[in-house]
């Protein structure tokens, strides 16, 4: 019976998140992450470079540089919440990129068919992984570790180790063009007004609230406003909103909504919180897990389309360490490696912080080796803070 009670708690987690102090703590994490990101920007802008960072142009570039990792980090977060993992994301992306160029060059398909087939290819791989997971009960770590190798091999075999380049104009434009500046600004205002407005109302609403919650509401309002204004300024002044960034935004909103407001989302958290209990309350755990892998596959398909169009080439060796970067971003964003916890905005914020550090160090002319050191330290710091607060809470 204890199991059942716990799972009901998990299922209702969303309602609790909205009201309790725990919600403020989770938000605090996200705010902290974005705060650190802003500090990183300021430090690189004013101290380490001659003001290269906070320019409309660099912020636009940065928003695209983070997309591939962020898209994969979102899928990874969903998997990790349900206690699954995908180590093959980089290999799958390389394979889909290779297929994209086969569709484009060898078969001469249109951009639209290419994108649809790329997403389908990702979904098929995801379905395969999911099926192996639930029917043969092989741990996802092993299935995707195998995929890490054999899918990469197939990616090399199809073009015989060669890099195909030069997609059709239609496909090239996917990652190399922007929504016109005026439309971009309008779009950002359209999305930002309700979000900022809601945060504003929440901040001004009276009633009994813990101090932490009050402080958080003010900071959230300020951050949202700053990011919205910053985005409008940057994209309006440099060519407009790049399509990969727009795609990331749409996917992030969609998946966040899915995870917070649907039975599917609640069930994912329940499965990760306690799989046994989830099964007992009648959740179809197998279906959830298969669907999660299919989602991951489709997201990898999106990442492959973005990356292939960005490079306008399909080197089969691309993204060796991408899966690990996506896992890093998810964990920096507050995902628990052992399931039950994590959020889509967290994953995006994690990817943004990682991309910001890499972008800043690169602009400062610092060797890539230091970028690797920095990413590792951020990961340790993020998990260290979590671990510390959890121990602290337990003692209380």
């Amino acid at each position, binding site marked *: 019976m204890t199991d059942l009670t716990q799972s009901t708690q998990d299922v209702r987690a969303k309602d609790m998140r909205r009201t309790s102090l725990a919600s403020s703590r989770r938000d605090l994490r996200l705010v902290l992450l974005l705060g650190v990101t802003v500090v990183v920007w300021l430090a690189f802008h004013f*101290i*380490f*470079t*001659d003001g*290269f960072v906070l*320019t409309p*142009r*660099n912020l636009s*570039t940065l928003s695209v*540089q983070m997309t*591939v990792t962020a898209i994969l980090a979102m899928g990874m977060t969903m998997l990790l919440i349900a206690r699954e993992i995908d180590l093959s994301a980089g290999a799958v992306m390389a394979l889909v990129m290779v297929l994209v160029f086969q569709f484009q060059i060898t078969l001469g398909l249109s951009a639209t068919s290419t994108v649809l087939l790329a997403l389908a290819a990702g979904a098929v791989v995801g379905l395969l992984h999911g099926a192996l997971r639930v029917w043969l009960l092989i741990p996802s770590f092993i299935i995707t570790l195998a995929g890490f190798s054999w899918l990469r091999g197939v990616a090399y075999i199809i073009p015989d*180790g*060669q*890099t*195909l*380049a*030069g997609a059709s104009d239609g496909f090239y434009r996917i990652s*190399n063009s922007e929504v016109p500046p005026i439309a971009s600004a309008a779009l950002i205002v359209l999305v930002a007004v309700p979000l900022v407005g809601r945060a504003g109302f929440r901040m001004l609403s009276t009633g009994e609230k813990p101090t932490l919650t009050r402080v958080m509401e003010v900071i959230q309002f300020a951050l949202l406003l700053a990011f919205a204004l910053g985005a409008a300024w940057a994209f309006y002044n440099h060519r407009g909103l790049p399509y990969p960034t727009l795609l990331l935004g749409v996917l992030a909103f969609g998946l966040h909504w899915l995870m917070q407001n649907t039975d599917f989302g609640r069930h994912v958290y329940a499965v990760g919180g306690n799989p046994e209990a989830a099964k007992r309350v009648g959740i179809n755990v197998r279906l959830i897990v298969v669907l999660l892998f299919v989602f991951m596959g489709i997201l990898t398909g999106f990442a492959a389309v973005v*990356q292939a169009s*960005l*490079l*306008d*080439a399909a*080197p089969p*060796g*691309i*993204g*060796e*360490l991408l899966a690990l970067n996506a896992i890093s971003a998810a964990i920096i964003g507050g995902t628990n490696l052992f399931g039950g916890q994590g959020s889509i905005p967290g994953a995006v914020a994690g990817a943004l912080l990682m991309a910001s550090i*890499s*972008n800043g160090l*690169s*602009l*400062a*002319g*610092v*060797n*890539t*080796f*230091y970028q690797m050191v920095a990413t590792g330290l951020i990961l340790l710091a993020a998990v260290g803070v979590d671990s510390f607060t959890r121990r602290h809470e337990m003692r209380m």
Partner: protein
Amino acid sequence: MIKRFSGLNRREFLAAGTALAALPAIKATAQGTGRIGFAMETFTVPRWRNLDKPSFEEAVLAAGFEPVVVQANFDVAQQLRDVENLLSQGVDALCIVPIDSNSGINMARRAAREGVPVIAYNTAIPSPDISAFVSRDNGNVGRTAAQAAIDTLGDISGKWVICSGQAGNAVAEEVTAGYFEVLQPMIDSGAVEIVSHEYHSGWDPESARQQVENALTANANEIRGVFCNNDGMAGGAVAALEAQGLAGTAFVSGQDATTEACRNILEGKQNLSSFTRFDVMGRTAAELAVALARGEAVTAPMTYSAGGEDIPLHPVEDFNVTRNNIVEYLEQYSPGYVDASVIVAGLADEFMLPGLEAYR
């Protein structure tokens, strides 16, 4: 100088400082930001760290520009980000060592969209957006190796073996074509016979050793010599010849003048190794980048056909390292590129040359 604490050691740092102090007058004439970007594939290989990079930086500084050198650790996606970041800093010219030839096309296109001239360095980028391609002339490496065999042996008629590098790799294909340019008349007349020619994936020395071993077996050890696309495979060939007591009698050529090859050359087991002056390569690219950044036109002495695209090639001198000039070579390139003390350590006295004692 806090911004550039990357790869500079103290001496480079001081040199940079001196150069910077001397240049404000020249810098003012630069049209843009006065920065020149260099997107490299790695710093880990000694060649890049000790020859290409410092000579590039030195020449850029000497011309009154500021070099910005980044490396992508063999990650293509990272290289694209590096290029974007260099472009957003507003570099006046950009040099790229493409990790992958075809992936360089869109990087060049992006730079062209910004009006930034691009130089492909070491590896070709088959794109009309390339203003210059700085590289060795691989065909020349093959031609001089075959010519050296004729000069050394006089009559080269007999059976020969060719060990080529990775199939499809431009260096392997072009060096090999260079051998044939010289040998073809003799092959046609029947004087020279290529009894074995294989491509080795990953330029694998062991697989080259097996090729030569099999060729020796099949031809009752009657092999005049082995042309190898690089020194790793030449080492494999030497091992196979040594096992049959033929090392020193058969002609062996290689490329890169590595530590192993230098030792084999001193011991007489390898006749030559082609070496490209990578320091000259860095300087050439820097001078071209500076000229392009100033808006000057540059004309290439040759064109190079890459993936159906004719791009302007500025070839960099290569020469064969042999027992005759190895001391001079080591004086110039040790310890920056190879370590002479490792080469002569434990070398039998009979193989020593005047001038090498200092390294012991």
